[in-house]
């Protein structure tokens, strides 16, 4: 492994190591604290579907930024400028499909994983085909993140991956194993703040070194200021390719298929709050993240151009020379913080935060699939919650070990990091994202078509790694690049092949019975809502929250039911039997102490009273002495 061009003295290495190790230890302890909020596997994997939108949304900041993001996007930012933001700013097109289709489907049908959706929508064969593809996708990401941080550690500190990767994996595996999804969300929230602060410091130091924002912009070449690159010149990074590969295939994969993100949405208390989280994620989180991960590359380019104009290093700084652009982030940061090891240590800790926050989500997600799609249906269908909780923790450990072992395979790859990433993802995702899309939005699409299109679509897409020229006609049709590796157009090619196969197989085979897909397609959401309410009529009337409620215990009320005064019910615009969300009134808990219950009216109760059994009170993790808030869900 080549050096990154940093000459670190032993004192500097020590200071950086102290900051980084301290950070990892604090996060592990913080995550472990949340083990107390897991009484069953629904808590462990989905946090009891109890959170307000802002908590999972804020935690998605860190989840969406991997350890490779800083390195990869800084390199892209240095090479092509602000067009490095393209992959982060083209997700909105998917919004109507997610807001009105996929999110309500998985929420109201109480889907736990995409493979489970495939079983209910199609059959067992579809479930296990999809499971194979999804696990390949997630293990790829876990291994890739560990591999990139291993490379960074090796390049900076000469620490062999043999030591750095297993140690890091052990730390983050520990808190995921005990803390589950709640630990993942709260540590990711903390790490997201850390990522933004560290990124902000690095950006501020860079802009300051350049002499201010105006200087940075003025010395940035026009080609590097633009939000887009050439339409089709570079097959590895073109506007046309990015649209089809990222805005279409990549966005569907991240939003519809990535079990980690899916589970994050399923921790949210309602569909409406899920939409708020998605809205915030695309409108705020992704644009800010695009700046945080790419800006050092833009600063590096401006810095190099200014050095050329002034004829040497900027006053007070070492001369910045970037020979290998993959190291842009490290080299520019080290120079602009004036080789301060403590500040640089903080930035290195941010790299680790990016790694930990992405992989913890994926480990928890893989473990969820392992339990819900393998262990429970195939190995032990009937067992206690304690047993499944124990199994879930073992699944987390096994996932961590497999991800760590995959680093060995990544080390055998000869390609650049960027190419390994996109080749892998754009080969794995096309068939399954198309099948999910057709399954959710086309009622007639059946199990024969789903299985055939996933298998054949995947095989055809994989074959293009050896026969890339078959993609050329598709790329030509959409005015994409006409030569090269067609990394992004491979995804479009795979999606088209899968869609065509799915369409024709559906046409020549009989359609599924309507009853089988009720609640699982976009056209049957009303039935899904009724099913969610156990047969009750959905109540869409707009109400207000009932605040400052005081809990009173009444053991005669069934578990998961509450009683409210008629006036409180009127405030909520709720009818008897409606699903109500009751929570601790401290907003900053984000719903950590809360529960979904059904409500009935009781005229004997005062307006500020809410009555429930001890079990309901305890299952909501509520504390005596704190007021409650109730709101109607449906």
């Amino acid at each position, binding site marked *: 492994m080549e050096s990154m061009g940093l000459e670190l003295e032993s004192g500097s290495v020590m200071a950086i190591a102290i900051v980084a190790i301290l950070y990892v230890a604090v996060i592990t302890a913080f995550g472990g604290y949340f083990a107390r909020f897991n009484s069953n596997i629904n808590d462990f994997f989905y946090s009891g579907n109890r959170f307000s939108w802002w908590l999972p949304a804020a935690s998605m900041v860190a989840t969406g930024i991997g350890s490779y993001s800083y390195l990869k996007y800084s390199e892209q930012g240095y090479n092509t400028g*602000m067009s490095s933001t393209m992959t982060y*700013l*083209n997700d*909105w*097109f*998917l*919004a*109507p*499909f997610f*807001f*009105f*289709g996929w999110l*309500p489907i998985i929420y109201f049908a109480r889907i736990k994983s995409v493979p489970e959706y495939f079983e209910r929508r199609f059959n067992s064969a579809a479930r296990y085909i999809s499971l194979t593809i999804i696990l390949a996708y997630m293990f790829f990401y876990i291994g890739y993140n560990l591999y990139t941080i291993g490379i960074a550690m090796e390049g900076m500190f000469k620490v062999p991956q043999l030591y750095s990767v297993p140690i890091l994996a052990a730390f983050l595996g520990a808190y995921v194993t005990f803390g589950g999804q709640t630990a993942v969300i709260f540590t990711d929230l903390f790490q997201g703040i850390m990522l933004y602060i560290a990124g902000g410091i690095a950006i501020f130091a860079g802009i300051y070194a350049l002499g201010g924002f105006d200087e940075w*912009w*003025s*010395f*940035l*070449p*026009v080609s590097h*200021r*633009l*939000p*887009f*690159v*050439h*339409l*089709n*010149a570079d097959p590895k990074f073109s*506007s*046309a390719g990015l*649209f089809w590969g990222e*805005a*279409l295939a990549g966005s569907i994969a991240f939003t519809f298929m990535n079990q980690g993100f899916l589970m994050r949405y399923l921790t949210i208390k309602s569909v*409406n709050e899920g*939409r708020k989280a998605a*809205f915030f994620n*695309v*409108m705020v989180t992704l644009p800010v993240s695009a700046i945080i991960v790419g800006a050092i590359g833009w600063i590096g380019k*401006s810095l190099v*151009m*200014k050095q*050329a*104009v002034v004829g040497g290093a900027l006053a007070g700084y070492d001369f910045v020379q970037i020979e290998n652009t993959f190291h842009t982030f490290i080299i520019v940061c080290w120079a602009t913080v004036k080789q301060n090891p403590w500040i640089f240590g903080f930035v290195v800790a941010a790299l680790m935060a990016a790694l930990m926050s992405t992989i913890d989500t994926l480990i928890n997600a893989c473990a969820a699939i392992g339990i819900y799609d393998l262990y429970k249906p195939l190995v032990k269908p009937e067992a206690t919650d304690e047993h499944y909780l124990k199994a879930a923790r073992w699944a987390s450990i096994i996932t961590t070990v497999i991800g760590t072992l995959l680093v060995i395979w990544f080390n055998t790859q000869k390609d650049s990091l960027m190419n390994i990433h996109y080749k892998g993802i754009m080969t794995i995702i096309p068939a399954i994202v198309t099948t999910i899309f057709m399954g959710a*939005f086309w009622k007639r699409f059946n199990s024969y078509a789903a299985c055939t299109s996933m298998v054949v679509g995947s095989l055809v897409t994989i074959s293009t790694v050896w026969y890339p020229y078959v993609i050329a006609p598709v790329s030509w*049709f*959409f*005015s994409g690049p006409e030569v090269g590796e067609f990394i992004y157009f491979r995804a479009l090619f795979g999606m088209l092949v899968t869609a065509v196969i799915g369409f024709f197989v559906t046409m020549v085979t009989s359609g599924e019975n309507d009853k089988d897909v009720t609640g699982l397609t*976009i*056209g049957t*959401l*009303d039935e899904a809502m009724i099913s969610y309410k156990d047969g009750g009529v959905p109540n*869409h009337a*707009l109400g207000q929250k009932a605040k400052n409620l005081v809990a009173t215990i009444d053991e005669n009320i069934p578990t998961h039911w509450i009683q409210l005064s008629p006036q409180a019910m009127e405030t909520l615009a709720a009818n008897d039997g409606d699903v109500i969300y009751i929570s601790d009134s401290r907003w900053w808990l984000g719903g950590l102490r809360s529960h979904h219950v059904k409500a009935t009216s009781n005229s004997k109760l005062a307006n500020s009273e809410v009555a429930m059994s001890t079990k309901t009170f305890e299952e909501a993790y509520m504390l005596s002495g704190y007021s409650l808030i109730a709101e109607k869900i449906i």
Partner: protein
Amino acid sequence: MDQKISQMKWWAAVPLVVAFAFFFPRLLINTLGADNPWTSYLYLYGFGTIYTGSGLLLALKSGACKLARPKDRFWFTMVIAGFCYFAALHGVWIYLALSIPYLGGQ
């Protein structure tokens, strides 16, 4: 019968979309040039309009979005507003990138 008519209308749009996919980028390249940032912009938001528009249409036709429901109406509006927000953001960005002088060449 109504459903059949509805499906016929839906499939009738496919040839139009295919024709658009073929001719629209070529029109942009021939008039503006492939290296013009506005070409990439119009490519993204041209196809993006079909992408988002088909999603909204599907949500309305399937009954997943009922504009009579206040929350559905709100989110329907937000989807369109979000699309306009990103289109405006990228448009202003390109304008600023092209209009402010570059000093590195001095």
